[in-house]
């Protein structure tokens, strides 16, 4: 699954650690999601969407 996490983070000037703290996960988790190594569960995808104040579809897209 593709995602826009890196771009969205850059716009807000958040580091991976900043985002990880907002989501309550490890920095490694954010990195794995961002690089496409790991697809988050639906509850975590909703948390990510809430943090960016966007919908899931605006952050993640099909391959």
């Amino acid at each position, binding site marked *: 699954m593709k995602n826009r996490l890196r771009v969205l983070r850059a716009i807000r000037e958040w580091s991976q650690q900043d985002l990880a703290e907002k989501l*309550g*996960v*490890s920095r*490694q*988790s954010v*990195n*794995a*999601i961002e*690089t496409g*190594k*790991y697809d*988050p*569960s639906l509850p*975590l995808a909703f948390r990510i969407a809430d943090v960016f104040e966007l919908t899931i579809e605006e952050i993640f897209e099909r391959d």
Partner: protein
Amino acid sequence: MFKKMSPASRRYTLRLAVLMSLYVALLSAASWLFRNHPPQGVLAYALAILPAVPVIAVFWAVMRFIVEETDEFMRLLLVRQCLFASGFSIAVMTVWEFLQTFDLVPPGNGGFGVFFFWAMGLGLGALFNKVTMGTAGSC
């Protein structure tokens, strides 16, 4: 480093330290007793099994870690590590037993039982995670 760990990871590390200390203490006590005052009958069996209790509890500690870890990605890495360790230890022991069946290696295991290979498998599993997922995990 301890501060950076998740609460579940900290609990696991503490449990592991306590269990391993208990294992060393029980193994030393059992070895000393068997050498100097060999127990008889049921007591001998009970004493021989005693060092296995903290080892079995390590499996419990790892399973609790999986249950208590709230970071789903770290939990996935841990499960992958455990599966890798289980497959590795079963494979090593299967090969070893067949070598024994055909008398190509001596009987016994020289102290390197399934737990030793499972622990080694956890290490290799972390390496496997690092190569394939970019991070080793926290176990």
